[in-house]
């Protein structure tokens, strides 16, 4: 079951195509990474999903039905990259206001405020003005106001920027918990190490087009370079390293990075050393990081243009 289905979405501005025929689906309960370099069209895409922009062409299906912005934005929580709060408003009032605009009754909203403020330990800030808070604190308030109405789809654009490690962890834990409880999360960021840590699906866009999408594990498999890291007990002499099964990419002391040649199997590497009587201490496949996939793919599409 997909929470969101995008079909051939297009959005053109006067000078360029911000989103040019993008389709993908987001399974319910997944943490979905939307990646792309600056100016790739991520924000435009997110704005269409949140009903801020209408697509020029294409269809959006939300929770199985055609997306109806006026109704469905009640079930979406969006924390844009350009975020902010009313500086002169008190924290409690501010969160209440945003919750009411998401369709919560005043009583419901106040109950939820109680719950979340307790959970995030910010009850004592309730009567402070936003401008009196530090940036990290404001970020916390912003996050709470985004999830107050318990959205089916939560969209977070760079949610960790400006947060210290402790608060980052707090929010990250909350994201996992919400996903476990069935909330689907779209997570847009440049920080690739976070993507690997958090996301189970990703889509990569560049210049308004989708370059690839799929589960993170699958993508790593698809883009693996057949590289292996092997640690040996003794330094082999060059003759012992000559083989048609692999090529040495790099070596440092007794550790080697090798690339498996075509038509050879992983075990061929191991049996090669065993055959030469060299003790293998460790052997590990090197999978590409999402960062490497990202860079290589973006470069490739840039070159193609």
């Amino acid at each position: 079951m997909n929470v969101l289905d995008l079909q051939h979405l297009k959005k053109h501005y006067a000078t360029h195509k911000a989103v040019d025929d993008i389709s993908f689906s987001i399974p319910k309960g997944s943490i979905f990474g939307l990646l792309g370099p600056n100016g790739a069209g991520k924000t435009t895409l997110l704005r269409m999903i949140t009903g801020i922009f209408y697509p020029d062409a294409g269809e959006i299906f939300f929770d199985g039905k055609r997306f109806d912005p006026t109704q469905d934005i009640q079930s979406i929580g969006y924390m844009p990259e350009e975020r902010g709060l009313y500086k002169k408003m008190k924290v409690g009032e501010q969160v209440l206001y945003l919750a009411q605009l998401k369709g919560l009754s005043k009583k419901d909203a106040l109950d939820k405020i109680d719950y979340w403020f307790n959970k995030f330990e910010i009850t004592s800030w309730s009567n402070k003005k936003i401008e009196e808070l530090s940036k990290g604190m404001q970020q916390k308030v912003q996050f709470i106001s985004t999830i107050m109405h318990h959205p089916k789809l939560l969209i977070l654009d760079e949610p960790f920027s400006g947060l210290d490690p402790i608060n980052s962890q707090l929010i990250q834990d909350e994201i996992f918990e919400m996903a476990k409880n069935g909330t689907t999360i779209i997570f847009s960021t440049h920080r690739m190490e976070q993507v690997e840590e958090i996301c189970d699906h990703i889509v990569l866009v560049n210049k308004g087009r989708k370059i690839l999408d799929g589960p993170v594990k699958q993508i790593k498999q698809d883009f693996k370079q057949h590289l292996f890291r092997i640690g040996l007990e003794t330094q082999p002499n060059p003759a012992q390293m000559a083989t048609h099964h692999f090529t040495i990419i790099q070596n440092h002391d007794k550790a080697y990075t090798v690339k498996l040649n075509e038509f050879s199997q992983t075990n061929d590497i191991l049996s090669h050393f065993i055959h030469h009587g060299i003790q293998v201490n460790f052997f590990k496949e090197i999978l590409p990081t999402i960062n490497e996939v990202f860079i290589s793919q973006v470069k490739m599409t840039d070159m193609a243009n």
Partner: protein
Amino acid sequence: MNKIWIIIKREYLTRVKKKSFIVTTLLLPLLFVAMLVVPVLIMSGGDSEKVAVVDESQFFEGKLADEGETHYKFVQANIDTLKNTYTKLGYTGVLHIPKMDINRPPSIIYYSKGQMNIILKSNMEKKVEAAIEDKRMELAGIDKAKLEGIRVNVDIVNLAGKEEKKGSAGLAYGIGYGAGFLIYIILLVFGTVVMRGVMEEKMNRIAEVMISSVKPFQLMMGKIIGIAFVGLTQFLIWIVLIVGLYTLLIMLFGPEATDAAMKSNAMANSGNNAAAEEAVKQMMGVMEGVNWTFIIFCFLFYFLGGYLFYAALFAAVGSLVNEDPNDAQSLTFPVTIPVIFSIFIMIASVRNPNSSLAVWGSMIPFSSPIVMMARIPYGVPGTVPYWQLGLSMALLIAGFIGTTWVAAKIYRTGILLYGKKVTLKEVAKWVVRKN
């Protein structure tokens, strides 16, 4: 609809709860009433004036009658010594009238501790003048009683329209000018408040958070309507406070004091007691002749219509401004220019409410809120026929629907546009493009 209401409530409450709002709302009426009352209190302040008169020609004795709290006492003394001792003798001042030739009155000097008040001055002058005039008439052989019999006081009464309503060009001028000017100030002040509010949302980067919950149009209208209520609240409080304070004063000091206040204002213009009294009487009469309900209704209509017409445009401008506050100035220019033009048209129209400039100015919605208010006090349907009023109102309603429509298109794009300076050409494109 519900969401707009929530937005209106926030926009209204955050502004009404501000200290600056409370202070200006409460202080202004106090200031207004104080301006009216303080001079009266000063004049009728019970401080009796005891004036020592040194009349070297012995001519004025018995001719300077006591008036109110002012008492004249003729003394035989050397002016140079009295000048220094009068306070000790219990006088508030010394009036020194040197020896004089009836045909060539000398300069008369009043010695006092502080500045002499203007009423005392004019009273004294009048008394001295009258005494000299009487003497001159006597010398010229003119009978005073006969002269009084010859004098007339002509008052032209203006009956306007078919019902021959008693009108006053002066009062119409005053009301028209005042109302037009007030609307001018309202448009600029509250327009700027709307613009600042939009700019705040854009700069705080809350705009995008907001419009992922509500439509841009709802956000814009919520703000405009909320601020309109702020303006109305302020007016209501002002009117209640001014009327309330005024009634309170009448109860405290009696109607004479308030009459005296008006008289003193009129006196400052005419410088003549009898004329002032006449003017006050006339003014009261004419004030009763004015259809206040109708004028207030029109005022509220043009206040709201004009506000809605311009507030949307100010909101659009606010949405275009980037970090640079100088942007705001150059972008507001196209919106403020018609308002400023309107005030010039209004000033011309209030003098000549039937000129074609006035008629056109009161039809076109860019200027009608200001200009029409200058014409209405001259009489409907006398000066402003019903069809003109109706057309002007209809055009204003159509106008603000139009500006709101245009502004909404600019606003929804502008509010999300950062770091880019927008040209008017681009803005025009946003307006014409579909969706």
